[in-house]
């Protein structure tokens, strides 16, 4: 059925956005196989090649390039229908990875066994055996998530060449579902940073404009999905490390509720805030990945026993939507996130998104979170304090970089001085200071009190609203090197996301628009926040939002060149 959704932004965006495709009254064919075809030839879609898009002159509403569809489901379908082999798919991704990697540099390690694993999937298909839900899906894994058969460094020189003895629980679950880990993605050292420039090894570029940062700390995972070097990826989010790079790179990023996904195998940065999240090019894909990695783990005492719903199954097809699919949904737009200090283009993208949600039937109001501005300093104290403790184990005694020294204190000092980068050292110092006798009450304890306030203000706001919305970052992706020497400016960029970690609630970032910059504009993400364990609600809203956002195509110019 043709989507009967009014899109007021259609006209709006035409005059504002520097898009190089021509809006025209287009209608998507309801046939899913055709739609899949559309996606595979994203480049041709972007260049608005008329032969891939059929017109439907009867449709009263204009429609533009198809909304993102699930890459995971399409891989599954093509495997099951024998249209393509897993080896074929893996080859395609590896090929693109090799082509784009010299510019993007999102991987610290690329697996050497991808083709072999893909052929194994093909043998399964041949034999008619049951396929796991992620069979043949190529997944990038952030380098701070342990993989037994690949190096895992956390982006730090101190762990250069370190190979864990075990797979992180999330990785194990993905593998059990049939996924193929394509490699380990770049990141700010131990997750400390918002640009991926803080990696001990390399700087990753934003596929939308390679002179810009992909965000961080999960910049490698976001850039890799954006550049289609992998289908989906895992990241980790302590203060926004999944959501901000998702926004910068124009992909979907999900930060689950604290405890939803086991942290076992995630190198701890700030244990009370850390959570493994996922990236995909569609909301459905993040939902499928979330399904695969969620659940209680006996190796993580902080993982929740809360039931795991079938996240993807509640995402109804766009064809079945009625005219007001979000009727009655109460949406609170966080006032503090759309005011001073936030890029005007970002603010208008978010306000447009709010209008779009209203068109879908939602009731959007502004809400105030009075403790919002306190979250940032509280976050930096708590995260640094926990980090100073969590990073104590990197002492050069058992694994990782060990300095040559005659005396124990020099062994410690030199191993850590040589192994850690400047940002990590700074946070260890800050955290050590905050936990010191005589300062504990003024810093750590106070920050915990602020955390309680933040939790409460989120609870109040989410009692009155189904979801809250805000930008995921106060600006689009900025230039590489722009904030390297201004850590406070970089920290300030986390204002949109840290409160969510302090409250422990889930948030989804979906691309919602563009602002000027680069050759094709820079993507902006909409952050949607829900109460703890309401990922299903977020995913449903995000999916409808994404599927009805018809005039944007979030494929970076890198892939269209």
């Amino acid at each position: 059925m043709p989507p009967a959704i009014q899109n007021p932004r259609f006209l709006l965006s035409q005059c504002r956005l520097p898009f190089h495709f021509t809006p025209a009254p287009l209608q998507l064919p309801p046939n899913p196989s055709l739609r899949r075809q559309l996606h595979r030839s994203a480049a041709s879609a972007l260049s608005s090649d008329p032969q891939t898009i059929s017109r439907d002159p009867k449709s009263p509403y204009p429609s533009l390039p198809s909304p993102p569809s699930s890459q995971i489901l399409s891989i599954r379908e093509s495997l099951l229908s024998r249209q393509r082999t897993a080896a074929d798919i893996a080859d395609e991704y590896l090929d693109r990875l090799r082509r784009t990697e010299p510019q993007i540099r999102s991987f610290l390690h690329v697996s050497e066994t991808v083709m072999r694993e893909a052929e194994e999937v093909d043998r399964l298909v041949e034999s008619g055996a049951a396929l796991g839900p992620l069979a043949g899906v190529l997944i990038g894994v952030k380098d701070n998530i342990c993989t037994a058969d690949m190096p895992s460094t956390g982006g730090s020189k101190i762990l250069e060449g370190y190979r864990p003895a075990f797979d992180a629980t999330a990785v194990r679950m993905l593998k059990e579902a049939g996924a193929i880990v394509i490699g380990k993605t770049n990141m700010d050292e131990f997750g400390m940073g918002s640009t991926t420039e803080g990696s001990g090894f390399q700087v990753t570029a934003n596929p939308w404009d390679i002179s810009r940062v992909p965000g961080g700390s999960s910049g490698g995972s976001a850039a890799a999905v954006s550049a289609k070097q992998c289908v989906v990826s895992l990241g980790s989010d302590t203060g926004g490390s999944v959501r901000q790079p998702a926004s910068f790179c124009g992909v979907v990023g999900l930060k689950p509720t604290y405890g939803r996904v086991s942290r076992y195998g995630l190198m701890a940065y700030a244990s009370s805030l850390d959570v493994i999240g996922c990236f995909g090019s569609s909301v459905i894909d993040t939902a499928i990945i979330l399904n695969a990695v969620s659940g209680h783990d006996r190796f993580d005492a902080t993982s929740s026993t809360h039931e795991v719903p079938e996240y993807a199954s509640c995402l109804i097809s766009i064809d079945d939507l009625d005219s007001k699919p979000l009727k009655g949904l109460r949406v609170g737009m966080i006032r503090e996130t759309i005011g001073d200090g936030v890029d005007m283009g970002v603010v208008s993208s978010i306000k447009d998104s709010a209008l779009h949600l209203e068109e879908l039937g939602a009731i959007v109001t502004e809400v105030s979170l009075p403790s919002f501005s306190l979250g940032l300093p509280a976050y930096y104290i708590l995260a640094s304090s926990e980090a100073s403790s969590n990073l104590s184990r990197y002492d050069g005694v058992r694994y990782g970089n060990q300095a040559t020294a005659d005396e124990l204190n020099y062994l410690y000092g030199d191993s850590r001085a040589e192994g850690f980068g400047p940002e990590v050292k700074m946070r260890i110092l800050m955290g050590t200071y905050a936990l010191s006798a005589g300062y504990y009450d003024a810093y750590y304890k106070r920050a915990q009190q602020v955390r309680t306030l933040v939790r409460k203000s989120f609870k109040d706001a989410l009692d009155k609203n189904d979801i809250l919305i805000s930008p995921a970052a106060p600006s689009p992706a900025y230039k590489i090197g722009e904030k390297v020497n201004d850590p406070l400016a970089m920290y300030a960029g986390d204002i949109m996301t840290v409160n969510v970690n302090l409250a422990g609630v889930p948030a989804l970032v979906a691309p919602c628009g563009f602002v000027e910059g680069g050759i094709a504009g820079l993507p902006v993400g909409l952050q949607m926040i829900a109460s703890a364990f309401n990922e299903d609600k977020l995913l449903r809203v995000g999916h409808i939002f994404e599927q009805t956002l018809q005039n944007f195509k979030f494929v970076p110019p890198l892939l269209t060149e």
Partner: protein
Amino acid sequence: MALICHGGIIANSLFLSKSALFTRSSSSLFHTLQALKARVSPRAESTTSTLKEELIQATPKRAVEQNTHGFEAIIGIETHVQLSTLTKAFCSCPYLYGSQPNTTICPICMGHPGTLPVLNSKVIDFAVKLGLALNCKLSMTSKFDRKQYFYPDLPKGYQISQFDIPIATNGFIDLDLPVEFGGGHRRFGITRVHMEEDAGKLLHSETGSYSQVDLNRAGVPLLEIVSEPDMRSGLEAAEYAAEIQRLVRYLGISNGNMQEGSLRCDVNVSVRPIGQLKFGTKVEIKNLNSFSAMNRAIDYEISRQVLLHSQGQSEQIVQETRLWEDGAQKTFTMRKKEGLADYRYFPEPDLPEVVLTKDYVDKIHQSLPELPEAKRRRYEQLGLTMQDVLFLANDNHVAEFFDTTIENGADAKLAANWIMSDIAAFLKNERLSINEVKLTPFELSELIASIKNGTISGKIGKEILIELLSKGGTVKSLIEEKDLVQIVDPTVIEALVDKVLAANPKQLQQYRGGKTKLQGFFAGQVMKESKGKANPLVLNKILIEKLKGDS
């Protein structure tokens, strides 16, 4: 009987010898000591004090009392008890003392990146048991904290411990001092009990040029018990520690073995003029591997401090950690404290709070065994002497053996005598503990009954006992098998007496000539003739009649 037990050991160990009897001695003792010495020696420095150490060394132990005139010692003890859970506190590794280095380890207890602790619930069971046994107030909600410092035996760079909310607080422990030291009942306060994890061990090379890390012990659960500063002498301190050992063994939460490091005591000693309210500067003593070492180290330290006080050099008593050297019988400075160590405690974010329910605590309360103090009071009620009471209640296996014996109807005093004399001697010789012998409490009660009802003589009883201890079997079958039933029939005994008198006319003559000491000789001969089965009372009665009457 007590003499048998104490003889030969009393010189070194004042009261511990009793428990030593019932524990298998460890062949690894030597290695442990070596390792410990190696570990601390690089940091040890000899004291620069002007104090004449020889003076103290020469002072007989008994004179400590006199040396402290005008001063009193204040002693507090921190005890670490290693819990005998099947697996470590936060991972599923087993722990076996003496295993090859680094064989009971996993990524979690090695502190590998990405690993997380998951609490072994047995640790809480054990902590609650001990908290209740120490008459503590339990924290129904407590939490874990991280205690942070760098040392190669600490894989994570922090120890998971409990800081401001320990699981148990405000308790006390009751004990009885040994009779041979004047006896007396004492109650010492318990400040707190908290849960934590053990660290690994460093093995230093002979040359001292490198050290190796053994993480087998890393992550093994400990309970730290902090006492109030209620002890006043080395003896009281050592008895306190011995009572803690008894308690954890009764509770079955630890083997309490000091040599293996399952029970470790750090002692704080200070001295102040009697009447002064303010505490003196406290000195911590480590490396105390036995109760007797504790006793002697503390008495040495008290004397050292008192001497400094009385020489007007009390400023030389500084807050420091001193090591007890068994060889020198002295304490030495290990490290002086520069202010307080800052461990930067903060709540462990990887572990949820520990929440106890009333039902859970009640259940554990009901499951507690009879504890040493209750046992001692009950034994007293049975009419046993304090010496018997202390001996029997000292070892839970012995107490259990005794209790079962009297439950089978044996007389308490007789059962106590058997256990404390012949059985104890056998165990000592064979280096066994009472639960390792073949004798069952039931057979002991049978044995006692057989003697009491005259079926066998006491002498035969002793012989059967050895058989029962080493080979097992029942009293009944042994008596039948060996035809050991006591001869009580006067006519049979009279015939034996006549036979002996007839065979020894010379001695009979001497006896009648006034050498009455020979009665013993005749009794012995008759007993021999009866193969030891003659009832001694009947025998002597008939013998005297015969010796005197038939003249």
